[in-house]
């Protein structure tokens, strides 16, 4: 028997896919900005100009998306709620250890979730949420270099460049991109095997419904 359960509300799905597009765009353009892999053949081209333009627009879009998703974690349903992520009971850590053991083939009990996130998923997504905020802050701090002394500089993190050097901020902005790419590889893979095992996981981020097997 299967039961259809409405899990992912529209704002959750929308911000999820916007974040996917943004991370892809930001990683490609960001990698180009860090180490330009296309070389223009004449001065009337605008390769770096376009790369930076796309990077900055995608950065604003990602910021909006992360903020909307954060807002939804206060007003959304139980699966989207902040309690789903900031939820540290002893049982949660037992589940977390069990989930990890499952993924390294040390036990056969599939991760438990009452519809939303398993213990492992919720802690990993909390980490990704924090990393996205770090990327947004460091990114705007670097962006504010072209607005020295202005309002953007003051608001968006010129102050960060006085705590750390611009180059240190740039290095961590760049390294965290790789950590997020690491996450995406694992995330896509686990979504795929979960779909294999339990069904409807990737599809649920489109329809919002998950198929739960009745016990």
């Amino acid at each position, binding site marked *: 028997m299967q039961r259809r359960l409405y899990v992912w509300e529209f704002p959750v799905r929308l911000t999820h896919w916007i974040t996917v597009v943004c991370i892809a765009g930001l990683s490609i353009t960001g990698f180009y900005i860090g*180490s330009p892999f296309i*070389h223009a053949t004449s001065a009337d081209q605008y390769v*770096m100009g376009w790369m930076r333009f796309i990077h900055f627009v995608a950065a604003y879009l990602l910021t909006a998306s992360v903020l909307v998703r954060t807002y939804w974690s206060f007003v959304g349903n139980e699966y989207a709620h902040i309690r789903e992520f900031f939820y540290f009971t002893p049982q949660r850590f037992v589940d977390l250890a069990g989930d990890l053991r499952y993924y390294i083939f040390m036990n056969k009990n599939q991760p438990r979730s009452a519809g939303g996130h398993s213990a492992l998923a919720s802690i990993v997504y909390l980490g990704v949420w924090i990393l996205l905020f770090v990327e947004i802050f460091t990114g705007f701090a670097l962006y504010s270099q*072209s607005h*020295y002394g202005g309002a953007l500089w003051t608001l968006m993190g010129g102050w960060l460049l006085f705590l750390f*050097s611009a*180059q240190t901020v740039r290095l961590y902005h760049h390294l965290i991109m790789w950590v997020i790419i*690491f996450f995406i590889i*694992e995330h896509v893979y686990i979504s795929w095997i979960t779909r294999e095992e339990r069904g409807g996981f990737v599809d649920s981020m489109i329809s919002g419904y998950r198929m739960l097997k009745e016990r």
Partner: protein
Amino acid sequence: MEGDSLFDKLSRRGVSRRDFIKFCSAMAATLALPSSLIPRIAEALEKKQKPVLVWLEYQDCAGDTEALLRASKPTVGELVLDILSVDYHETIMAPAGTQAEKSLTDVVKNHKGKYIAVVEGSIPLKDGGVYCCIGGKTAKDLAKEVCGNALATIAVGTCAAYGGIPAARPNPTGAVSVKEAVPGITVVNLPGCPMNVENLTATVVYYLTFGSLPALDRLGRPYFAHGKRIHDNCERRSHFDAGQFVRKWGDEGHRRGWCLYEMGCKGPEAYMNCPVIKYNEGTSWPVQAGHGCLGCATPNFWDVNTPFYRRLPHVPGFGVETTADKIGVGIAAVAAAGVAAHAVAHAVRKKESKEETGTQGDKK
């Protein structure tokens, strides 16, 4: 001669009125002042009595003194600094020994609160400051006495402004900036390695014209000299936007004057007026000469802007040649390998579980 105006002194040296007004216009431009203020600058320079100036040198390479003296012909700017009564300058003054020290103590005594102290070089604090002593006094004590009684202190060069190269890790002498060594004094930082003498002249001209010091940013640098980013005023900026980069020293792009971004140019995070006023009487500046900016006017530039010829710093805790992207590719490779290995093992487990449960299907 006491009481003579600057212009009297200049005419005696053969500087024409026209040259003088040209200089005043250049100063107005450097200070980002409107042209309507040129007469005011000229008036101030013509009429005002020049303040006494002393030049102290501590831990540095004398590069700022070199910058001051390096002009190929005497310029009006040089003469302004020259004719300002430079009563003490360790490197270029005529007196020596007790005579020299007397001229310094005389200035402090006779012009208390009225002279300008220019400091070049950082001040060591470690082990009681023994690493830099002049006439038996430590640099710190001297700076405290001379800068503490000055009208204002101008810290020239990155060493005096922020500690500079002597303060680079591991900073064996405990070198600090003038502001850190003598807290509470009025300091204008004119960093750069070396500082640009045009900015020093402009700071003095600003003081003579308005009777106050120019507006400073959070790092104590005048906005007129450090308010704009090198990258935004760079002559090679269009090559950056286009995507034309030098990839190797001496390659096609380098010969054609393309952007030095990939060669580690720190212009995008450096704030100074180099592209506009250049060095050595407007002859050239690093990027024009084909070398990236080192961001030498940035605090701790020797530590934070290295490696100078790479875009990103090395990752702390790893071998010095390990770059962020090598680690990044490693992380992605570990993820991909983990996924691949897991997929194989997962398929095996699925097969096993099917065999165990037979035809009953998945009964989790």
